[in-house]
């Protein structure tokens, strides 16, 4: 048996099985979305594949009753952990009225739910980073013990809004966790053409904050880093910048063809480090994930995705005239 790493982090076997199941569910939802897209049933998909470990590891380290998240479009793992369901995600994929994110107004991947403490997201990258800082400021003004958590790609870490927001949080020592999901590409542009620094976390010092780079394929490493960042934030030590390194396993989106800019074997190579599989191996190696449990989980996830798809496909669209509503308070 391998070393048990999760106990050392205070995670029970149930915890890690839950984490694993959430990662797997994220993957299965995503895979289904692609199938539906290729079958012409939904116009667009943008994937979490390859980043589930970082997303779920991070979200588990947060307080889901108190913390607020401002995720980005790949964060199926984050929103599932925060209580969104596969059905919600499918409703969004099919753009149906019941979609809790936007009532079908936005593309999939544009998460948001007040009930679940998920700030509504748009498409222009990195605007949410400022919102996370603002929510943290609001939390402090209201005297709440909470942190905010926001994610973005490494390409997006070059946007002005990242800089201004990180600096603001640093100056005001706000309880914000900035997590950069470095998946090596911004659409077709490899990280070396996006950034000249070695690690995105090298930017932390410029904001007087803690910075750290961890293996984004390892949910436990990410969990540990975010947990510590949360503790620092709660202790009043201000924000942190955590970078998770993984790899984007799919094309950028269903509109992309990645064969034009990266080699197939690069992708194959990366698949060997796919967190969904390596975490399963770890759980097997420490005797937590038995064969029986594993197939139970797989079945549960598949059933869940099947039912979600069926429900969402059958659900009605919003009425055309409903497009006129909610421009202003009504």
């Amino acid at each position, binding site marked *: 048996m391998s070393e048990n790493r999760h106990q050392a982090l205070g995670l029970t076997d149930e915890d890690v099985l839950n984490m694993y199941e959430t990662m797997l569910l994220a993957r299965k939802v995503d895979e289904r979305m692609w199938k539906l897209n290729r079958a012409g049933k939904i116009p667009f998909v943008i994937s979490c594949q390859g980043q589930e470990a970082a997303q779920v590891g991070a979200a588990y380290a947060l307080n889901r009753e108190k913390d607020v998240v401002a995720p980005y479009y790949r964060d199926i793992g984050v929103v599932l952990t925060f209580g969104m369901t596969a059905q919600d995600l499918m409703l969004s994929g099919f753009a149906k009225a019941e979609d809790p994110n936007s009532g079908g107004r936005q593309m999939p991947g544009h998460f948001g739910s007040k009930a679940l403490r998920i700030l509504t997201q748009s498409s222009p990258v990195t605007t949410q980073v400022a919102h996370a*800082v603002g929510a943290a400021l*609001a939390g402090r003004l209201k005297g709440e013990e909470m942190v905010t958590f926001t994610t973005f790609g490494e390409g997006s870490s070059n946007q002005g809004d990242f800089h201004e927001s990180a600096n603001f949080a640093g100056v005001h020592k706000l309880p914000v966790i900035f997590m950069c999901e470095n998946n090596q590409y911004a659409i077709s542009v490899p990280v070396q053409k996006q950034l000249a620094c070695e690690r995105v976390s090298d930017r932390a010092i410029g904001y007087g904050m803690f910075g750290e780079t961890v293996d984004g394929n390892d949910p436990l490493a990410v969990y540990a880093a975010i947990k510590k960042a949360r503790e620092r934030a709660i202790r009043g030590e201000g924000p942190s910048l955590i970078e998770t390194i993984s790899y984007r396993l799919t094309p950028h989106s269903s509109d992309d063809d990645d064969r034009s800019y990266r080699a197939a074997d690069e992708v194959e190579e990366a698949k060997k480090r796919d967190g969904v599989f390596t975490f399963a191996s770890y759980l097997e190696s420490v005797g937590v994930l038995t064969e029986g449990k594993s197939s139970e989980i797989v079945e549960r996830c598949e059933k869940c995705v099947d039912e979600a798809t069926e429900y969402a496909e059958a659900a009605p669209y919003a009425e055309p005239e409903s497009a006129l509503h909610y*421009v202003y308070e009504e």
Partner: protein
Amino acid sequence: MPVRSYIEAVTLALHEEMQRDDKIFILGEDVGVRGGVFRATTGLYEKFGEARVIDTPLTESAIAGVGIGAAMYGMRPVAEMQFADFILPAVNQIVSEAAKIRYRSNNDWTVPITIRAPYGGGVHGALYHSQSIEAIFASQPGLKIVMPSTPYDVKGLLKAAIRSDDPVLFFEHKRAYRLIKGEVPDEDYTVPIGKAEVKREGEDVTVMTYGLAVHFALQAAEKLAEEGISAHILDLRTVYPLDKEAIIEAAAKTGKVLLVTEDNKEGGIIGEVAAIIAEHCFFDLDAPIQRLAGPDIPAMPYAPPLEKFFMINPEKVEHAMRELAEF
């Protein structure tokens, strides 16, 4: 009723609202100890403390974006942009985010933020401290744009903006700050956003305008009254979305319409006013809809003769009104 300056009305509204509701806080550049470069937030830092009157770093996009985040999470921020000209780095946060959050979340999230900014010319501010920038935002459903002319309206509209559950851009004419004085009650009151107001009743020509130019029009109207020309003056007050009913009514009233702005002519918000009138008052008009505006040059130059050339003033308004009356 006490007579107050335009900027005193700003400060008073902020003060009263912050006292009323502790969800309201201020953020911006130099708004704290300094009380703002124009002193609009003077005394608030001393009264409400550092936590509620926040000197931010010099970053407009973050001022807007952090404000939006705080507004989503239950606060009511009042953000100051030091000059309206410097709101431009924040356009993405304002247009892509503030304006669209209620809509895109299907009414789940809201952004009760007020963004104040001093705009306008005639202060030797040159290209980048004189601009009218309402036109940039006046095509974005989800936003409201308020541009008051009198201290009374300033207080009432700023309170309404702060209490609004939607984002409001509140543009204050910086030359009006100390130039324009008027009665401002001590009592709590609001003036409704989205409603224009007839500032003078008249029969011969209708002038529609907003901000400092309302006073130019009123002055011109006094002069013309001596000549027997009676002017009807509508203060738009909210320039987006426009008060269509009031516009149509005021246009129909005299059948002769002069639209005035100190912004450039092409693409300014008075073009939309003209379009509304052209669409709805076809049978009421007795003359072409006239526009008086700044020339279509990028912004006001610094050298006094050039600035004067750009700026509208009571004489230019009077001249345009007389021409129209005589049409």
